[in-house]
């Protein structure tokens, strides 16, 4: 291997990459847009959700309940004229849930004592939006129970009805690593996996197919440069550019979205830069099997569907059927996203992640070997 030849190749590649404004824009804009867009897509919080309310009771107690709900701010209350209007609004999705307070609510609350009927309210959820309904259920149940408990405490109690300890076992829950259950860090850490797999593969594949089409790749192959030198000449400059991308993303996530890694940022950047090599090798292999640049992009997109859906980026792996989980373990992206989340959220270090790192290294070596073979073959 000749250093001089390698340096010439690297210089050539840098110039070719940086000449095309489209490539430069995608290198900067895509990662940042992905961070900002994906970062805010999941949430356990309910914010200003439209809640239809039908107050058939119209007393101080029912108005107090509605005022409590309004004051909380999670829901935007919309009075409904009739039960038919409630149903219609649910069908069109104008409201995500509806609260109906029956005329007996007030009386039951005042007379509430052992053996008497409890105060009743009805809630209808739009089950069509499963996650919204689940989140709304948790938050509404808590709000209404608290408000009604307050109302009952204010109401005069019949003698003998003391407050007693509730039945059942009290579960004291504590959330570690992300106490507010904020969705942003989870998605930010996953977005690294998305960008470093998808964008890197895409740009590499396109750049090499274009060279093949222009015939410059064949020219490289007939020079005295070896397959390894051509490979390194391609991979090192692109890898360097993507390593800069990683740093840029860490900074934007930290400064704009207030998400910094809990673990070592240096460790994260090093692992990510090595992972970029895996994606670059993947891009080389795809380019070797594609006739046109458009075909290379389409192939990358087809491989990216399982990446987004099955790597755990958007949906937790363990919720999937077992055979699908095995399949997902075969994607390097799955392991990288796991590492990224562990470092970002749980503050894990190299020792906590040994098996995952070993697997990543194994996949990387496998793909680099495959890419080297395609480099050497002369079309």
């Amino acid at each position: 291997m000749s250093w001089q030849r390698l340096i010439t190749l690297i210089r050539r590649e840098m110039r070719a990459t940086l000449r095309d404004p489209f490539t430069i824009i995608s290198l900067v804009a895509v990662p940042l847009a992905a961070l900002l867009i994906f970062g805010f897509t999941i949430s356990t919080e309910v914010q200003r959700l439209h809640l239809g309310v039908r107050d058939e009771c119209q007393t101080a107690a029912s108005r107090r309940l509605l005022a409590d709900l309004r004051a909380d701010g999670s829901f935007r209350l919309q009075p409904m004229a009739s039960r038919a209007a409630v149903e219609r609004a649910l069908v069109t999705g104008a409201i995500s849930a509806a609260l109906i307070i029956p005329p007996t609510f007030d009386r039951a609350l005042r007379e509430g004592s052992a053996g008497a009927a409890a105060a009743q309210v009805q809630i209808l959820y739009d089950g069509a939006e499963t996650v919204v309904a689940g989140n709304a259920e948790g938050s509404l149940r808590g709000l209404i129970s608290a408000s009604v408990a307050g109302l009952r405490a204010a109401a005069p109690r019949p003698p003998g009805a003391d407050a007693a300890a509730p039945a059942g076992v009290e579960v004291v829950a504590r959330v570690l690593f992300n106490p507010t259950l904020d969705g942003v860090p989870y998605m930010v850490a996953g977005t690294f996996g998305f960008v470093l797999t998808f964008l890197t593969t895409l740009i590499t594949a396109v750049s090499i197919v274009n060279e093949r089409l222009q015939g410059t790749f064949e020219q490289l192959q007939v020079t005295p440069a070896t397959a390894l030198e051509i490979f390194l000449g391609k991979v090192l400059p692109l890898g360097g550019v993507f390593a800069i991308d990683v740093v840029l993303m860490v900074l934007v996530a930290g400064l704009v979205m207030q998400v910094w890694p809990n673990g070592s940022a240096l460790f994260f950047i090093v692992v990510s830069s090595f992972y970029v090599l895996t994606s670059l090798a993947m891009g080389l292999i795809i380019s070797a099997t594609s006739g046109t640049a458009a075909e290379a992009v389409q192939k990358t997109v087809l491989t990216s569907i399982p990446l987004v859906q099955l790597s755990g980026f958007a949906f937790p792996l363990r919720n999937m059927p077992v055979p699908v989980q095995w399949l997902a373990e075969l994607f390097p992206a799955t392991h990288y996203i796991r590492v990224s989340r562990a470092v970002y959220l749980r503050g894990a270090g190299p020792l906590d992640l040994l098996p995952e790192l070993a697997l990543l290294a194994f996949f990387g070596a496998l793909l680099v070997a495959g890419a080297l073979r395609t480099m050497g073959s002369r079309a």
Partner: protein
Amino acid sequence: MSDTTSRSARFFSNVLAVAYKEATELRHDQAFLGVVLVQPIVMLFLFGWALSNEPANVPWALLDQSRTPASRRFVEAVQSTGYFLPPTPVASSAAGRALLKRGQAVAFLTIPPEFRRAIERGGPRVQVQLDGTDPISAARIGGYFSQIGAAFDTGRLAADAPPLDLRQRFLFNPTLRDRDFFLAALAGMLLTNLCLSATSLSIVGERENGTYEHMLASPTTAIEIVLGKLAPHVVVSYAVLFLAILGTGLVFGIWPRGSLLALCVVTLPFVLASLSVGVFVSTLASTSAQAVFVSVFFILPSFVLSGAMISYQLMPPGVREIGALVPLRWYQLAQRRIIERGADLGEIMVPLLVLCAMFGAMMLLIRWRMKPRLG
């Protein structure tokens, strides 16, 4: 009068001529036909079978300091929910925390030594520590533990009257199955993919092959060329729509509850709008690789921000509005209304009109982009 009829007749015959040429090319595009047939099957299984937000196979750690029949009964209650794997017993709090940190447990339950005595005296409590990394899973798993605790029979009756009788009902999807949510929007996702990849190469491809100039030299206008290019894809799109409806119905037993007619009506402006986004991308791009690249980065955010895969209601205000700019947002709104909630044509008017407006706006943009190059 006769002048206008002959002009409109020429318009239609020109559009048809381009459509015929386009359809002939399409019929010979093996890769395209492969994508059209394979993609619906892959997506049907992904969304119907593989993906879910509902916790399953949850690994958890257990520190049972009580070691009594009561504590074992509590563990059994957790197991019987079906969401959890068998627990990993740990000897100390630190060991449990270590499992959480390595991601080998998502929940860590500690049952204190005085658990059994507390049950007799009142006020028993257990502690659950959750890995908040994945907030949606953590919130749901925390909810399961609270429910298990509340339902646990301690042999004591509450002295007070039940404070509140909360009658809850989940309409349209009583068990909140994610499958119904995903599959309702399946056709929308498939068609977004199909329409954009079909037309994003249309203009730039002709330009690269040099056939674009041939078409301009013929007596067809830019709009006639574009409409002719869209027409065959509309037919393919309806075939994909029916494939998606049939597949969802036959494999998973989920059939549209509302009006099929309404579904077919709203599909037309959506398909036209998506196709014209592809054509617009094609007029912007200078190479076909760029065109595919840009359309990919339109498709992915469409899936995520439209609400087809993830509910847009949970996104913060600014992000919500960005999602309203993609046709898929309005189509998935209409799909959910029709397929899940049984709506008819009258209840999808707003999405229908917005989609028509989007198609109109895209056609104006395309005309504007193609004009200067005609001169």
